[in-house]
């Protein structure tokens, strides 16, 4: 039966149902069901998931100053951004001002994460949706070298280097231990790159893996260690002493110079390897225009990377804040996270209970009462669902809405907002890419557009990293070495009750933590994470979320190889890494792939 959603999509669940069901423990569980028409085009999409419902389960009653350490462990991918969001929420609640250096260093930490995460996502989590590894074995190393040198000045591009990579890959494949390349849909007709482009991408996959370790050293300098860097309510846990020559712990000139050289090399890698690869790969997929979903009509960003400390105005955020609705790029609305009328979470299609499920609740008033019931059209049982009934409750993810609208968040959302606001740092690179590829602006609203925005943002982030590192050094040399404000460290200085909200733009989108503090302890803690926005189920009005919208109208080249589904879901960089079971319509397991 065909239905029209209020946010403008046509859903038809008449055709063959295909179930893609990753199972995971750590970052949550995402399952996806689609209906295919007789031409194997997706006409209905249902995204089912869990994000760990309610951090209050582990944080209630604990010291708010420790919350960051717990939130850092929620997930293995975006540790630092949860920690930063958490300390910002506590500071907002308690009215704590942070020193200028602390703001700068936090920006450096966050921009390092953006650069690193985007690079790793592109090469190690997403590229294999576009790059056929097995085809790379057929490439001519000489022709690969010619190709590589035609698109970039990156020095490592000799025929010998590509031959070496090909031999290593061959040995790896022949040993039968494909490892990260296991369970790919190699040879699927949806792969469009010639063997040489595939080999070039595989070589850069290895180079990026080798290089990424350099970037995270910045976290070790300012966060004390990596993985799991340290954070601090009131500033950063990082003493600075420019004249220091080797005393334990303090950041000195030698460490600052190390960071500086890492930034320079990261700029080179992103601008000479990542971006040229992105454009080269995109040039073979210009006809694959699917996956836009909500991006052309409803996108949102909380904004991040404050230029100055303690100024939360939209104008102070270098990554833009705002919301675009109904496809009207002429108007960017401001977003206020403490306004109870703006962000609300609905549960009509989520496995929770509210008193009135037609209404949404702001996170400060959030209620997390589970109610795992399945609709009458469900096939299977509660512990073995074969087909979900999306007319009823069907997800552990709540449905967050901004003034009632389902929103896409993430790099593409941020870049569409920057573009719509006419900010040159965003508008000019977008226009250059579109010109280089000879594409209209509408091409931005696609799976590929999402992937391209992430690449542009990686470059933006690493150049901003340069800016903030220089700003830090200049401020230190001017004699300001303060990194923390401890005046409200003691809970006796706190009000009896306080509430606050902290936000970041995580690599994968808008992240918010809402905290209620009572008698010095955490009373309530709610996190609305990027994948809650993008992976949300339907709301009471029937609006579909970003994943569901993006999958619609995409043709599958081979229906039991959901390469195109993974391609589009991965383009959101969803916060989950999981093994996937692909079920045939009768529920028999066909294939298992890894989704990261």
């Amino acid at each position: 039966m065909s239905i029209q959603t209020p946010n403008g999509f046509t859903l038809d669940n008449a055709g063959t149902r295909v179930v893609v069901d990753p199972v995971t423990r750590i970052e949550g569980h995402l399952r996806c069901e689609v209906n295919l028409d007789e031409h194997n085009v997706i006409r209905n999409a249902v995204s089912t998931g869990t994000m760990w419902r309610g951090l209050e389960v582990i944080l209630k009653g604990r010291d708010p100053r420790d919350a960051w350490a717990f939130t850092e462990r929620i997930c293995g991918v975006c540790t630092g951004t949860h920690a930063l969001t958490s300390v910002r929420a506590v500071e907002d609640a308690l009215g704590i001002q942070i020193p200028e250096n602390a703001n700068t260093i936090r920006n450096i930490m966050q921009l390092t994460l953006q650069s690193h995460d985007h690079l790793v996502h592109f090469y190690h989590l997403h590229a294999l949706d576009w790059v056929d590894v097995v085809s790379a074995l057929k490439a001519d190393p000489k022709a690969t070298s010619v190709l590589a040198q035609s698109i970039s000045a990156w020095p490592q591009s000799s025929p010998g280097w590509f031959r070496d990579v090909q031999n290593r890959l061959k040995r790896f494949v022949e040993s039968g231990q494909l490892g990260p390349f296991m369970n790919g849909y190699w040879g699927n007709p949806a792969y469009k790159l010639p063997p040489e482009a595939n080999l070039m991408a595989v070589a850069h996959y290895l180079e990026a893996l080798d290089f990424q370790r350099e970037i995270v050293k910045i976290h070790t300098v300012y966060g004390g260690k990596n993985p799991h860097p340290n954070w601090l309510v009131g500033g950063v846990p990082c003493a600075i002493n420019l004249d220091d020559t080797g005393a334990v712990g303090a950041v000195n000139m030698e460490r600052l110079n190390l960071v500086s050289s890492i930034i320079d090399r990261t700029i080179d890698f992103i601008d000479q390897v990542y971006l040229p690869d992105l454009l080269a790969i995109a040039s073979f997929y210009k006809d694959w225009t699917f996956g836009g979903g909500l991006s052309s009509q409803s996108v949102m960003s909380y904004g991040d990377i404050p230029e100055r400390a303690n100024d939360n105005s939209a104008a102070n955020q270098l990554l833009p804040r705002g919301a675009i609705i109904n496809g009207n790029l002429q108007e960017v609305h401001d977003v206020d996270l403490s306004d109870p009328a703006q962000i609300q979470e609905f549960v009509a299609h989520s496995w929770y209970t509210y008193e009135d499920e037609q209404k949404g609740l702001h996170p400060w008033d959030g209620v997390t009462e589970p109610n795992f019931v399945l609709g009458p059209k469900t096939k299977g049982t509660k512990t073995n669902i074969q087909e979900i009934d999306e007319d009823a409750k069907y997800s552990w993810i709540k449905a967050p809405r901004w003034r009632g609208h389902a929103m896409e968040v993430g790099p593409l959302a941020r870049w569409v907002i920057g573009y719509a606001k006419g900010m040159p740092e965003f508008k000019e690179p977008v226009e250059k890419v579109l010109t280089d590829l000879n594409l209209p602006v509408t091409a931005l609203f696609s799976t590929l557009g999402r992937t391209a925005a992430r690449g542009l943002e990686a470059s933006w982030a690493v150049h901003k990293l340069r800016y903030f590192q220089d700003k830090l050094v200049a401020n230190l040399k001017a004699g300001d070495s303060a990194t923390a404000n401890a005046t409200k460290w003691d809970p006796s200085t706190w009000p009896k009750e306080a509430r606050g909200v902290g936000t970041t733009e995580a690599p994968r989108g808008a992240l918010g933590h809402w905290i209620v503090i009572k008698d010095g302890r955490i009373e309530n803690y709610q996190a609305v994470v990027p994948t809650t926005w993008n992976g949300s189920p339907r709301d009471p009005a029937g609006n579909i979320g970003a994943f569901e919208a993006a999958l619609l109208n995409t043709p599958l080249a081979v229906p039991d190889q959901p390469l195109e589904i993974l391609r589009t879901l991965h383009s959101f960089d969803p916060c989950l890494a999981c093994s996937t079971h692909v079920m045939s319509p009768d529920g028999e397991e066909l294939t298992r792939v890894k989704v990261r």
Partner: protein
Amino acid sequence: MSEQTKILILGIGNVLWADEGFGVRAVEALAERYRFGPHVQLLDGGTQGIYLVDQVRWADVLVVFDAVDYGLPPGTLKRVEGAEVPRFMGAKKMSLHQTGFQEVLALADLLGDYPQHLLLIGVQPVELDDFGGSLRPPVKACIQPAIALALEFLAGFGIGWEVLEGHHERPLDLPDPALSLDAYESGRPSEVAAYRLGDPRVLAGVGGA
């Protein structure tokens, strides 16, 4: 083995998921009692997946503590060595980080820096599906025997150590003190206060708690 043999002792897993925290807790306990020379690194790897490739490439000898599904009775400690390690870690996928770690080893291999010696010290978990919970007693009881196995292995490479008494400074690459085993366990909210009910799939193994 020369003096310069580099040893990485890595604990992996998520401390927020009951026995999933075994690996991290074991390396934390090891650091509490023993101090090693500069060529031995103790690391809380959490669930970092491919971000651990660099540390693995650095190591000549890699010792991993982890919760592993061996198909053995809960609370059983088992050591696996050498070429068997990656196969074992991928045999039955219990959680994300295992798959991830098998991949870490494959990537280290692909980059040409595979450790020469590998030891996996794993425990069969009792309980994983308890968010915010800690190690179950039979698993906690495996920590000291697991450490003994690691020390025995290290002694085979001529590695020495110093036994620490009393309070001392916490090494850097371990969980923040707010997450240390004692603080983590004593600060846990009660079941009623935290409303730790719900998700039947998560609770399926708890016996309907």
